[in-house]
C-alpha cells in the first residue's frame, strides 16, 4: 500500500494556507456570549416548590434527665395555657476549701450565691423559697424530671427572689459548723466526700409562693466563704409537676422542653425512578432544599399571657431523629439539628435535605423526627405547636427541586 509521496507533497504544500485560514476564523470568532433566543427554548430545569403536609404525627413522653444541665429551675407558676407548673430545684455544694484559705473558723460566714438566668411568670412578683435539706443522697446525672425530691422537712433557711440577677443566701451558723466538721473529719478527701454525701446530701429549693419559676445557673451556684472565695456546686437538678393544662383541641399541641409531651413525625420516603414522600410523587430526585416548617399559635400564646408575665422565648426547636429503641437513651446525645425561628414569618424551619438525600442513597429510614422546644437546658420552655389537624399553617415539608 503506497500513497505516492509526490502527490501528497503537492497537496501538503497548501496546508499552511489552510491552517492560516482556520486560525484566522478561530481568532475572529472568539465567542461573544449574549442572551439570544430566550423565548425560543423552554425553561428546562424549572425550580419547583412543592408542599407536602406532614402526617403520621404522634406525641409521646420521653424520660428526661434533668440534672447537671446548664440551669435548674424552681418556682410555681399558674400558666393559663400550659397549666400549673411547679418546679423544685436541687443543689449540692462541694466540700472543698479553697487553696488560699488556711482554715474555716467556727464563726466564719458562708453564703450561698444563686445566679438567675431566666424567669417564667410574673416579672414583678417576689417569690419565696425554702432551702430544705435533702433527706438522702441523690445524683444529678441520673435525676429525671419527674423524680420526687427527697424532702426531709428540715428547712435551714428561706429566701426571696425579686428582680435581682443574683441572690446571696446566708447559711445558718449551725450549717457552717456542720460543713466545718465534715471538712476536718479526715485527711483523706474521698473519706470526707463520703461523709459529706451522707451528712449533707444537698438542698431542695422548695417554692413557697406562687408567681414565677426561676432558672438558676447550675455551675455558678456557689458557696461564698470569706466574702469572696467561691466554691462551685457539686451537682444540681430539678423536677417538674404540671397539672391543669388547658385543653387546646386536636389542631394544637402544648409541647415543653421537659419532654413530657414530645411530638414526632415519620417521613415516608420511597426512592426508585423518582421520589415519593408521604405518598406524594415529586417526579424528580434533584432536591435543592427540603425544609420542614413547623408553626406555633403565637396569637393564643400571647393572649393567654397576662401583663408583666413572660415565658422563656423559644427561638429554636431541637430536632431529634430516633428509632424506637433509642428514644430513652440516644436523646442524651443531643439533637441532630435545630429548626430556627424564621424572623419573617415566625415559623420554625429545619433543613432536611441531607437526610432525605441520604435516604435516597439507601440509608435507613426507620426513625422518627422528634421536636423539643430549645432542648434540655434546665430552663422550662413551652410552645403551642400547630398539628396536622390545623386548618392553617399545619406542619409541612417545603421541597425546592429541579424538574
Amino acid at each position: 500500500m503506497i500513497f505516492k509521496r509526490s502527490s501528497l507533497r503537492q497537496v501538503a504544500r497548501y496546508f499552511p494556507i489552510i491552517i492560516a485560514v482556520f486560525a484566522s476564523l478561530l481568532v475572529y470568532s472568539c465567542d461573544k456570549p449574549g442572551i439570544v433566543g430566550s423565548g425560543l427554548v423552554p425553561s428546562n430545569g424549572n425550580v419547583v416548590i412543592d408542599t407536602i403536609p406532614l402526617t403520621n404525627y404522634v406525641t409521646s413522653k420521653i424520660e428526661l434527665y434533668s440534672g447537671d444541665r446548664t440551669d435548674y429551675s424552681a418556682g410555681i407558676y399558674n400558666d393559663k395555657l400550659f397549666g400549673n407548673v411547679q418546679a423544685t430545684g436541687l443543689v449540692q455544694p462541694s466540700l472543698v476549701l479553697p487553696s488560699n484559705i488556711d482554715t474555716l473558723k467556727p464563726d466564719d460566714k458562708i453564703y450561698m450565691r444563686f445566679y438567675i438566668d431566666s424567669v417564667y411568670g410574673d416579672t414583678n412578683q417576689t417569690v419565696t423559697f425554702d432551702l430544705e435539706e435533702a433527706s438522702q443522697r441523690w445524683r444529678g446525672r441520673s435525676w429525671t424530671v419527674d423524680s420526687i425530691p427527697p424532702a426531709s422537712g428540715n428547712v435551714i433557711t428561706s429566701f426571696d427572689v425579686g428582680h435581682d440577677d443574683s441572690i446571696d443566701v446566708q447559711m445558718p451558723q449551725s450549717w457552717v459548723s456542720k460543713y466545718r466538721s465534715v471538712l476536718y473529719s479526715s485527711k483523706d478527701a474521698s473519706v470526707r466526700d463520703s461523709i459529706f454525701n451522707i451528712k449533707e446530701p444537698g438542698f431542695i429549693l422548695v417554692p413557697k409562693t406562687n408567681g414565677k419559676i426561676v432558672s438558676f445557673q447550675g455551675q455558678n451556684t456557689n458557696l461564698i466563704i470569706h466574702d469572696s472565695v467561691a466554691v462551685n456546686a457539686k451537682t444540681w437538678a430539678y423536677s417538674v409537676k404540671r397539672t391543669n393544662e388547658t385543653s387546646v383541641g386536636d389542631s394544637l399541641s402544648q409541647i415543653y422542653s421537659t419532654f413530657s409531651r414530645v411530638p414526632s413525625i415519620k417521613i415516608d420516603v420511597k426512592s426508585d425512578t423518582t421520589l415519593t414522600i408521604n405518598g406524594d410523587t415529586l417526579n424528580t430526585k434533584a432536591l435543592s432544599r427540603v425544609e420542614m416548617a413547623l408553626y406555633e399559635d403565637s396569637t393564643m400564646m400571647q393572649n393567654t399571657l397576662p401583663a408583666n408575665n413572660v415565658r422563656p422565648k423559644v427561638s429554636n426547636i431541637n430536632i431529634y431523629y430516633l428509632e424506637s429503641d433509642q428514644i430513652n437513651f440516644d436523646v442524651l446525645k443531643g439533637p441532630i439539628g435545630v429548626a430556627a425561628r424564621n424572623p419573617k414569618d415566625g415559623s420554625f424551619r429545619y433543613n432536611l435535605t441531607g437526610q432525605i438525600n441520604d435516604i435516597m442513597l439507601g440509608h435507613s429510614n426507620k426513625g422518627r423526627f422528634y421536636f423539643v422546644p430549645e432542648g434540655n437546658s434546665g430552663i422550662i420552655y413551652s410552645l403551642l405547636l400547630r398539628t396536622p389537624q390545623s386548618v392553617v399553617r399545619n406542619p409541612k415539608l417545603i421541597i425546592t427541586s429541579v424538574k
Partner: protein
Amino acid sequence: MKYINLVILFSLLSSGLVFGQNNNSINDKGSLYSYYGIGTLNDYRDSDAQGMGMSGIGLNVRSANLANPAMWGNVFYTSGSGGFFIRNIESSDNLNKNIKTNLEPSHFQLVIPVKRNKVGVSLGLFPISSSNYSYTKSNFISPINSATGDTVNYNVNNSGSGGIDYLELGIGWQINKNLAVGYAPSLVFGILKDDITTNFSSTAYQPIQLNRKISNIGFGNRAGIYFQKSRVFSDHDQLSVGLMASLPVHLSSTLSVQNYIASSGGTVSNPTKNLKNGNLRLPLRTGMGISYWINQKVLVGSEVLYQKWSDFQNIDGKHDSYLKDRIRLGVGTQFLPANKRSNSFFQNLAYRVGFSYDSGYLKLNDTSIQSWFITAGLGIPSKVGSSININAEYGFTGSKANNLIRERIFSLRISFNLTELMFLKHKIQ
C-alpha cells in the same frame, strides 16, 4: 515509512470522530435550534458536491461518495475520505447578538473495489445530526417561598450535546456502463444529552446538576440507483441521474437521568435510573440528483432531498408538533480549467459554486426554520486522484420574527480524498 502517511491520516480522522462522539464541538455551543428534534441535521455530502450546494446523489465524481451507495461499484482505486469543518454562527434576535464557533468532524469513508469498476464496498461513519447548544435562564424564588425570607435568584443552564451517527457498511454494483445500484445497511446510534445545572444566589439552596440523556440504537437501510449516459446532446456531454432512499429507522431508546446530590458523605452521584424506554423513529429520507457535463470542463447539477418528518416519533411514540416535512434543494456548477493535467497549479484546480435552500424540519412559533446558503469550493487534485477539497458556505437559518433567532452561518469545510491501489497491489505482490 510507507505506512506513515496513512497512519497519520487515520489517526487524525479517528480522533476527530471519537471527539465528535463525545461532544461534537470545542466549545460546547452551537445552534440554539439544535435543542429541538434530534438536533441540527447534517446531510452526508460528497466532498466535491459540497462546494456546489449539493450532497452528490446524482453527481459523477471520482472520489468516495457517501451520498449514493450506487456510486461505490464504479471505483478503480481504494479511496478514503474524511474531513472536518469549522462553523461560525452569529445568532441574533430583536435585542441581542452572540457569536459561537464549532469545530466538528464531518465524516469518514473508505471505499474498496472488490472488482474494479464493477463491485465495491464502502465503510462509512458519519453523523446525521448534532445537538450542541447552551443557554442560561434566570429566575427567582420570591421571599414568601424562600427559605431565607428574601428573594433568592437562580440561573439554570441547559447544555445539549451528542447526536445521531451512522456506521454503514454497503456495497455498490456497476451493472453496466450506464446503470449502477447500491445498498447499505447501517448501525444507527447516538446519545442526545441535556445537562442542566442550577445555581442559587443563596447557600441555603444546594446547586443541582441534572444530566438527562436519551441513548439510541437501531439499524438502518439505504439504497441507491444511478444512471449515466454520454453523448446525450453532444459528443462531449454526459447526463447522470441518481436516486437514493434511506428507509425509516426504528431506534431503541432509553431515557435516563442522573443527578448529583449532597449527602452526609459529600456530593455524590445518584445512581442512574432508566426512566423510560421507547422507540424513536427516524423518517424516510429520499433524494434525487441530476448532473450534466456540458463538456469536459463544465458540470452543472441540481438536487432535491425530502424527509418525511411528519412521520417522526419521539421516545413516547408521539409526533412532535413542531416537526414538519423537509425539502432541500441545491443547484451548482463546477469548472475545470484544464481537462488534462497542466503545469499551472491554478489550471489544475476545480472551481465550484452553488446555492441551496432548506425548508428545515422545524416549525416554531408558526414559523418554518428555513435556510439559504451560497457555497463555493476549491478542489486541489493530485496526480493519482487524491485531493483536498476546501468548501466555504455562507448563509442564514431562521428568522427574528415571532421571538425566534436568525443565525448567520459561515462554514469552512476541509475534506481529504486519498486514493490508492490498495488491496489490488497486495494481491499482485
